C-alpha cells in the first residue's frame, strides 16, 4: 500500500492511501494492530484521521502508521469477519423520489426497486450518532445533493446523495435527496449496540409499500 501522512495539528495525522479502495483495509489494520498511542480512528471515503491519545508521542505514531501502510497486503487478513446484516423497512414516498427518478431515467417504482434490490455496505460513520454512509448501491441511481439543504430532514428519512445512501437518525438539516422513510430506530441508547448500522454492516432496504396513493408533499 502507498499513502500520504499529513500532520493535522500536533495530535493527529490524516492518512490518505493512494488507492481509495485501501482505506477500509488500512482502518482494519489499525484496529488489529492496537497501537497504544491511538485514541480514535475516523475513516471516511478517501482518508483516515488518526487521533493520538493526549499522552502519546506523535513521531512514534507517525512511524507506526508508516509501517502499517508499508506492510504487504495480506489476502487472508483482508477477509473481514462476517459482518452484521441489517434490514431496514422503507416506505418509498419521499419528496425527492420523482426528482431522483427523473435524473436516473427511471420511474419512481423502478427507482425504489433499484435502491432496495442491492445490498448496501456501511462504509463509515460520521455526522451524527447512528448515521452511516452506505455505498455499493445500484449505480443506476443518479442523485446530486440539493442546491438548498432542507433546514429539517425528518428522523427516519431514507436518502441518497452521490454514491451514498443513508438514514437520518434524527431531525437534522440536510441536503440529501429523500426517497422514503423508515420507523426502524437508527439510534437507541437502550440497545447493546446503540447504532443500528455500524461500519462493515450489510444493509438491505425492504419496501413495505411502494408509492401508494397519498404522496408526502415536501
Amino acid at each position: 500500500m502507498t499513502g500520504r501522512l499529513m500532520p493535522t495539528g500536533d495530535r493527529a495525522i490524516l492518512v490518505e492511501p493512494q488507492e481509495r479502495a485501501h482505506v477500509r483495509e488500512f482502518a482494519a489494520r489499525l484496529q488489529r494492530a492496537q497501537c497504544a498511542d491511538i485514541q480514535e480512528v475516523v475513516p471516511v471515503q478517501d482518508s483516515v484521521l488518526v487521533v493520538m491519545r493526549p499522552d502519546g508521542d506523535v513521531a512514534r505514531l507517525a512511524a507506526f502508521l508508516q509501517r502499517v501502510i508499508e506492510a504487504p497486503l495480506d489476502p487472508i487478513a483482508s477477509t473481514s469477519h462476517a459482518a452484521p446484516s441489517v434490514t431496514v423497512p422503507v416506505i418509498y414516498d419521499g419528496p425527492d423520489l420523482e426528482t431522483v427518478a427523473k435524473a436516473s431515467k427511471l420511474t419512481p417504482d423502478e427507482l425504489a426497486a433499484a435502491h432496495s434490490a442491492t445490498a448496501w455496505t456501511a462504509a463509515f460513520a460520521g455526522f451524527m450518532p447512528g448515521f452511516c454512509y452506505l455505498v455499493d448501491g445500484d449505480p443506476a441511481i443518479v442523485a446530486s445533493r440539493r442546491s438548498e439543504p432542507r433546514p429539517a430532514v425528518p428522523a427516519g428519512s431514507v436518502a441518497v446523495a452521490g454514491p451514498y445512501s443513508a438514514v437520518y437518525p434524527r431531525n437534522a438539516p440536510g441536503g440529501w435527496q429523500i426517497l422514503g422513510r423508515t420507523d426502524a430506530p437508527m439510534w437507541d441508547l437502550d440497545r447493546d449496540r446503540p447504532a443500528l448500522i455500524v461500519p462493515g454492516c450489510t444493509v438491505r432496504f425492504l419496501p413495505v409499500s411502494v408509492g401508494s396513493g397519498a404522496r408526502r408533499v415536501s
Partner: protein
Amino acid sequence: MSRELIVVDPGPLSLIEDYGRPGLASYGVGPSGAADRESYAWANALVGNHPGSAAIEALLGGLKLRAVGSHWLAVTGASSHMRVDDRSVRNSGWIPLHDGEQLALGHSTRGLRTYIAVRGGITVEPVLGSRSSDILSGIGPPPLQRGQTLPIGPLEHGPLTPRRRFSTTHQDGVVTLRAVLGPRNTRVPGAHRLAHGVWTVTNNSSRVALRLARLERDATSDADVDIGSMEWDARQEHPSEGLLRGCIQLPPSGLPVVFLADHPVTGGYPVIAVLLDADTDRAAQARPGQHVKITLVPGPLDVRQTRSSGSIHADIEER
C-alpha cells in the same frame, strides 16, 4: 448521610463534564468532554479527585449550589465574584461548604467557562462510558436544572492539593491561538490569510465551535480593516473528513469555524489549519466579542522522509 449538592440556580448554562467518551467514531459519536481541560483537571486536582471525576462547567458564571452534607469544592477557569451565603470568598484553592451553605458565582468578568469540582465527584449515571454532556448530539446528562439534586461520590480520594496560585487559561484582550497549517489548506486559495489581522468571536459560538468573523473596524484607528476576504468558490463537492477539537474548517463564506469539545465526528468543508492541542483550552475561554489572533506555527512532523526502496513510500508532508 447522603451527600448532595442542590442546584439553586444553574446560571446561563451549566453542564456536567469529565474527560469525555473518545473512541466511538464508528457510532458517529464525538468525544465531547470539558471544553477547557486544563482548568477542569486543575479543579479536580485541587480537591484530590481522580482525574476523570465529573465536574460542572458553568458558562458565564451565575451558578448557585447549596450543600447537603459537607463538601470541598474547587473553582477554576473564568473568574467571577464568589460568595458563600452572605460572605465574599476569595478564590485561592479549595472552598469548604458546610451543610446548608450556598455557594454563588457572580457573572463571569473574565473568561467564559468556570469549572466547579466537588471532592468525590458528581456521580450521575454515565452514558456510553462518560458523564459528559455533548450539546451537539444530546448524549449525556441534560443541562443542570433549577432544583436538581446532584449526587456526590464518597470521600475516598487523594489528599487536597495545598492552596497556591495557579495559572489561568483565559486571556484578556486578544486571545492568541497557535495553529498548524493543513491538512487541506491547499484546497482553499489564500488559506494562510487565516493568520492575517484579527478575528472576532461571534455570538453563534458554543461548545461545538468558535465561529469567527472579520474584525471590521480597528478600534485604535477607527479605520475599516480590509485584509481580504477568505470567501471561496465551493463548486466542487468536498468529501467529509474526520475532525478533532482544534480543527479550523473554512466554509465557502470565508468565516472560519474553530471546533471545540462538541465537534461532530466528520465535517464537510476543508480543514485548513488545526490549533495546537494545548491552545484549544484557551480557545474555550474566548468570549463572544473577544478578538482572536491566529498564528501559524510549524507542526511536530515537518520532516520530509522518503524511502528510495521500490515504489512503496509514505511521505510526511512538508509545510
